[in-house]
């Protein structure tokens, strides 16, 4: 059962992306895909190289990453705390949850006019949008994770004289952790998605800015380049989340096995 199968290695997961890229290159070379519409991988790499040499690529990635990190931490913290309090205090749940569920479905794009009204067009508006995007998946997963913690263990904790804080750190948090991590994992992806919208506001840098202007200026190679950038950053975020998962859930045989 636990035997290492041939496909259980680091490289195998990259098989599919590589095959897709190769196929795409071949189709592009043969002219089966028009390169003004969908440039070939090599053309995209070329575009990337050019941007890299002028230092622009690094600048955009750096700025976006900075926004992503700040926004993620603010939104993640708020989402986590809201999930935490709403998950443990019925009064707060009743007071706030409905409102959160209502705000949650409002697209960033629709919010922008109001965001500008409140935050202007500077950094804070962008970070706000990222934070809002990150907040909800973390909120929902934390909230539900806490609701689903085995109540028998909580009962035990209470009987063994744990303080609220101890109960939280020793039982509720680790019990909800698998769900919270799902939320974090998802939110890491949302971060980048939020940025593309956020970076249209009075922006002059960032991957979202790069993507939007490339699209408006019909530079398909850069459009695809940004897509690739998103994919790479997404995979990277996911990798971080997975490492966290493996460290934090090592007690769980499901994670210990692989």
């Amino acid at each position, binding site marked *: 059962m636990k035997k290492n199968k041939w496909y259980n290695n680091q490289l195998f997961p990259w098989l599919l992306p590589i095959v897709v890229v190769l196929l795409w290159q071949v189709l592009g070379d043969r002219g089966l895909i028009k390169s003004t519409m969908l440039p070939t991988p090599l053309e995209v790499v070329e575009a990337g190289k050019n941007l890299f040499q002028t230092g622009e690529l690094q600048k955009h990635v750096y700025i976006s990453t900075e926004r992503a990190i700040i926004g993620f931490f603010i939104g993640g913290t708020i989402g986590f705390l809201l999930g935490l309090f709403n998950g443990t205090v019925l009064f707060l749940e009743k007071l706030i949850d409905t409102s959160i569920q209502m705000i949650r479905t409002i697209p960033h794009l629709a919010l922008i006019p109001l965001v500008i009204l409140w935050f202007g067009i500077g950094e804070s508006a962008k970070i706000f949008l990222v934070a809002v995007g990150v907040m909800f998946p973390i909120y929902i997963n934390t909230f539900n994770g806490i609701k689903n913690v085995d109540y028998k263990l909580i009962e035990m904790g209470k009987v063994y004289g744990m303080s609220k804080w101890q109960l939280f750190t020793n039982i509720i948090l680790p019990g909800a952790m698998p769900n919270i991590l799902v939320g974090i994992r998802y939110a890491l992806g949302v971060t980048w998605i939020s940025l593309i919208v956020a970076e249209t*506001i009075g922006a002059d840098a960032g991957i979202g800015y790069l993507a939007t202007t490339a699209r408006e200026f019909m*530079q398909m190679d850069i459009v695809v380049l940004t897509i690739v950038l998103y994919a790479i950053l997404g995979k990277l975020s996911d990798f971080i989340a997975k490492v966290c998962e493996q460290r934090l859930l090592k007690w769980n045989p499901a994670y210990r096995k692989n």
Partner: protein
Amino acid sequence: ACGANSDSDASEDGETIRLGYQKGNTMNLLKAHGTLDEALHEAGYNVEWKEFSMGAPLIEALNTDNIDFGHSSDVHSVLMQSGGHNVNYVASESPYPEGVALLARDGSGIETLEDLKGKVVGVTNGGNQHYLLLESLKEAGIDWGEVDMKFYKDASEGLMAFSNDEFDVFGTWDPFYAIVQDQNETHTILDGTDLIENRTFYLARDGFAEEQPEALTIILEELENMDQWANEEKREAAEILADELGLGPEPLEVANERRQFGVQRMTEEVIANQQQLADTFYEAELIDTEISVQEAIDAYDLDESVFPDNIE
């Protein structure tokens, strides 16, 4: 899989002409009036209107054969060509320089171009007021770097930012120009007069002119008819557009008053002005390839015979 995508069979009657439009332009009037539909039906065509809320998806739709005919601003046409796409210029609307302007709040002390130095100017990246700003600064001999340009995405975003004192100067265009003029205590620093033309161009997909020249002729003819009607009935035209846009009629009346409608051929003068736009954008590093508008015209090689009699 979807209807709009299905290729029309050239040998059959009742093929569908797919028209792309954005709100607030002649095409929009034409759709509201229904005269083009009538004319095309008479000639045995079906008509499908596709609305686009923004320029970029319309051009993308043209390029992927999802629509046959549409329109786009002068700047977007240049951007499209610089992105390596075919830009199939068919004709253009009359210039509309007064429909684009730079505004400042009353009492801000910003009156002339000189005053722009060191100020925050809000424009849409690659928009017609962006071009106006660049041209006017160049004219006045002011370095672009001396002005702090901030980009906004669309009209409401711009208005929000301007109202919120995020911009000292606000680049805008009709009908929003008219609205802002009307609602806020602002004054115009300059509009496009003698600086830029601010045209709309009519574009077609690859091969449309060859495959359905008759349809193209009808479209152009009806466009011109519409334009002439609009020139005479500016009020009524304003009302129709106001209805379509969901705005009050007043700003559109103001806008229409300063506008002359009319379809024009791609004359050398038009091409030269468009080329100037391309050069300025290249200079400003908005686009990264030098382009030749003439090349695009030559590449499409539109047969002059498609033009109806009512267009000079």
